[in-house]
């Protein structure tokens, strides 16, 4: 299923919220003595279309929802409560393209990322700031996999990278600044049109980074480097090419 908090959970939130709004609108129409079809929901309140002075805030509607004598006959007290059980019909298929420029130190084999450009399509974006944060975090983990992180074991099978002293999690100076863009193609598989985004970065970044390194070394006949691309591995490739 991939990253599914919004495609699955968000869809549930939308369905449940829609049910709550429908019932709250009925209560508001009853309180305002108006037709349900004429009620508008905006800015935290329910108002009668064309008569903005006739309105009732959410808090009042919620309070009345517990009072049987204030409700229209077809609603039960406590009705602003919705529980949804659902399955989404299919996966979501986010896609994207990442571009990475690296610089290699001939003396040490160290790889520095000079720039990193990220374009993702996660369909409908609910919160652009949170979506960008998810991409950045995934990209950081992807770069870490490409360049730094590895569980290493000795000949007896004992882990040699069991703490943060030995296992290299990148810190702020180890990672670049990112530029990011977005393409929006809503998915037909949920009514939000939202696709997963949490794992896009960690899927896109490793091939972008490793291919940039391979490209930089291609004039030496290098066609492949195993992750993580450590300075030692690059340095050896440079030595062998001499």
């Amino acid at each position: 299923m991939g990253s599914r908090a919004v495609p699955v959970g968000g869809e549930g939130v939308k369905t449940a919220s829609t049910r709550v709004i429908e019932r709250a609108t009925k209560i508001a129409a009853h309180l305002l003595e108006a037709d349900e079809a004429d009620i508008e929901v905006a800015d935290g309140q329910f108002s009668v279309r064309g008569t903005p002075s006739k309105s009732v805030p959410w808090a009042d509607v919620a309070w009345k929802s517990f009072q049987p004598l204030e409700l229209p006959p077809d609603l039960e007290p406590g009705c602003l409560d919705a529980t949804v059980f659902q399955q989404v019909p299919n996966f979501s298929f986010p896609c994207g393209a990442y571009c990475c420029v690296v610089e290699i130190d001939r003396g040490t084999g160290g790889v520095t990322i000079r720039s990193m450009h990220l374009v993702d399509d996660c369909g409908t974006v609910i919160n652009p700031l949170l979506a960008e944060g998810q991409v950045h975090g995934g990209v950081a983990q992807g770069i870490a996999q490409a360049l730094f992180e590895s569980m290493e074991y000795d000949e007896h099978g004992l882990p040699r990278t069991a703490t943060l002293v030995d296992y290299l999690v990148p810190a702020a100076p180890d990672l670049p600044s990112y530029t990011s863009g977005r393409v929006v193609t809503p998915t037909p598989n949920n009514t939000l049109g939202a696709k997963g985004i949490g794992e896009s970065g960690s899927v896109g970044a490793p091939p972008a980074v490793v291919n940039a390194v391979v490209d930089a070394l291609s004039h030496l006949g290098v066609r492949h480097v195993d992750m993580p691309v450590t300075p030692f591995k690059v340095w050896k490739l440079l030595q062998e090419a001499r």
Partner: protein
Amino acid sequence: MSTMNVTITVNGTETSHQVESRLLLVHYLREVLRLTGTHVGCDTSSCGACTVLLDGQAVKSCTVLAAQARGCSVTTIEGLSAPGDPFTPVQEGFRQEHGLQCGFCTPGMIMASTALLADNPDPGEDEIRRSLEGNLCRCTGYEMIVRAVRWAAEHAAGLAEEVAG
């Protein structure tokens, strides 16, 4: 078990307790004073989640004995702004720029950034990244943390005026 009396000013209030001599400052803060905003991430002074200010300097409180902080002034995340009060520029910057994902490293990041800005009120991106080298974040990719610190640098004066006014 050897014990000793320690007196430490924490967030402006003098505290005094009889504690085990080997007690770490972070455990004094979390377990004796119940100030659990300071986190323990790694216990090996690698991750910086436990960063607090000790006489104004950022330290990893998992690597300081409570006894070493005797007579000192400690500021934790709880000491930056009281509940209901306006945030400090750094706190507000982390909110405005979404300088977090899960939030576990955030108290340490905010304390380290606070110390940085006290030293250098207008740091560039590279300076911010180097200054936060001792604080690990697993989920943000650091970009928005850097933006949060820049936000704080750019709004420090304005926010201070708002608080004063």
